[in-house]
């Protein structure tokens, strides 16, 4: 049976519709405009953060890339971010598989304990780590910061990978075993490729969490361990120079790159008919 073609009627949108579209457009502008405003400010040739800018120049970017403090902060952010991502993704993925395989009581409790850092207000985590890291001599170290960021970002890895494992068909493991694959082989050849998009998404979230994290850094980082957000915060508090706007633009561009990578992973995962592993709709 073929569907009866519905005649295409082009209606003039009602006033209500137009109002709705106008409101939505305005709100979307409200969401994006403050982020866009930083771009011209960062390119100002003047010393003040005013619009319209007196002229345009790259001087504040030059300032960023020649300043010891900003370069150190960038370096620290990447070192902490990458280490956090590696540890959180590895341990988080292994634990997710463990939680998927395990048939024991208290599994929900273990999951709750592991995701507790996600629902704990960050300030509480920050002071807890401030007290204990200084007690064991890890205050004011990058190691302490990596530990803290790992704990904060591991729930995201755990939840994304677990969600994708829910859709994993255990018969595939039996099939692999029946074909003579060792458990390790079937992990590498069967499980890992299937959950890879979720692992990648989790890793991306872990990196973004660490890269954006400020509150823990406020408590446990001395100037030598300042990350980009921490350096930015110090800059805002001391002297509001357009270098901060330049730093903000660079961070925004990195966030957009991360977002694009995430969207690509998500679209590929959908195309491969895997369930969407991302929380974004």
């Amino acid at each position: 049976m073929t569907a009866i073609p519905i005649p295409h009627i082009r209606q003039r949108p009602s006033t209500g519709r137009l109002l709705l579209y106008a409101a939505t457009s305005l709100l979307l502008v409200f969401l994006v405009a403050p982020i866009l405003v930083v771009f011209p400010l960062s390119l100002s040739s003047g010393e003040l953060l005013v619009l319209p800018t007196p002229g345009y120049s790259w001087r504040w970017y030059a300032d960023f890339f020649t300043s010891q403090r900003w370069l150190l902060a960038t370096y620290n952010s990447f070192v902490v971010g990458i280490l956090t991502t590696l540890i959180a993704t590895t341990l988080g993925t292994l634990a997710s598989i463990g939680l998927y395989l395990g048939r024991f009581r208290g599994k929900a409790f273990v999951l709750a304990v592991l995701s507790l850092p996600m629902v704990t207000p960050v300030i509480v985590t920050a002071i807890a780590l401030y007290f204990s890291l200084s007690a064991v001599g890890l205050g004011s170290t990058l190691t302490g910061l990596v530990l803290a960021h790992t704990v904060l970002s591991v729930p995201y890895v755990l939840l994304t990978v677990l969600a994708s494992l829910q859709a994993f068909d255990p018969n595939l493991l039996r099939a692999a075993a029946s074909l003579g694959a060792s458990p390790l082989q079937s992990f590498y050849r069967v499980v890992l490729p299937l959950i890879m998009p979720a692992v990648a998404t989790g890793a991306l979230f872990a990196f973004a969490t660490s890269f954006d994290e400020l509150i823990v850094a406020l408590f446990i980082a001395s100037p030598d361990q300042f990350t980009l957000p921490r350096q930015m915060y110090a800059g805002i508090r001391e002297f509001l120079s357009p270098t901060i706007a330049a730093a903000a633009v660079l961070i925004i561009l990195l966030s957009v790159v991360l977002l694009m990578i995430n969207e690509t992973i998500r679209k590929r995962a959908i195309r491969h008919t895997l369930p969407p592993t991302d929380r974004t709709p």
Partner: protein
Amino acid sequence: MVTKRNLLAAALIAPLLLLVLVSFIVPLGATLYRAVEDAEIPTILPQTTALLKQWDGEALPSEQVYRSLITELRDAQEQQKAGPVLNRLNFEETGLRSMLLQGLRASGRFAGSTKEGLIALNPRWGDPQFWGLVKRSTGPWTPLYFLRSVDLKLGPDGAVVPTAEEEAVFIKLFLRTFEISLTVTLICAVLAYPIAYTLSILPQVWTNIGIMLVLIPFWTSILVRTTAWFIILQREGPINALLISLHLVDQPVTMIFTRFAVYLAMVHVLLPFAILPLYSVMKGIKPDYMRAAASLGAPGWRRFLRIYLPLSMPGVAAGAMMVFMLSVGFYITPALVGGSGDQMISYFIAFFTNTSVNWGIAAALAALLMGMTGVLVAIAWLLVPGFRAGGVRV
């Protein structure tokens, strides 16, 4: 078979569990324990503590107790360790710090008995009530910090009484935190609704663009977005420049460091958290229901109120819950764009940890904040179906 499988599972979970236990659960527990711990006086004045444990609490303690307190306090002061003791006792009753310091300075000049010298200096030294306060502070636990964080304290007789008006700041702080969080949640829910609805009915191309415009701020760090508002709302900032060039105002309007700035920036930061769950719920509402209602003769507003609104409610609830939970713990945004009267609980936890060092109060506030968040999570988990699906990214 199951055992072998569970062993493998345990081996896979163990490394992460160990990491989270050591670098999160244990520190968290130790920190929250500070809210009830009373260790300053027993550790720094051990001998006085032991003597006071034997004291009956009725008559004045003996000369030995007076001398022990002064000697131990002086030793502590020489090693720069007296601060916590003085703070602890001053927290019990404002003014005890100066009284102890005065006694400590004068004690070197006492010819005869320390007890008589001190009492001559300040009659309060001869008050058994004062010694009651000291004895009460010898640990191991105290309810004082929790009481203080809800504007209560222990009277000299041990009864729970309200704190003096100028010290009663914490209930106000909790109310303010709730007021800001509720307002932000309400604004976010109201603004998110039309956006999410429009995005759910637009042709796919436009939806994709709209969702991108929501996701870009969602992925941009909170600090960067707050910084943007910090710059925009300055007295010489772009908004004031615009208002003046349009001749809407003559003088720059003060926007930064106001409650308005806090609401504006917080709504901007949290709005995507309200839009995204609402959008995914609305996307799942079949247009058939609305058509059915229309075919039965329901007018537009009625279709909306009776069909669409109830069906989209789980999305509103999930988004609102998320926004409220995140707002209650907000720190950076109010700290940067708010004034001194716009700071929330998190700010004071930081303040009592770093600036005015009173770790007991910081821990008690942290425990209460955690408890509140825990209750919210539990409510959301039980009542809001969309909540478990939605994620949090702070």
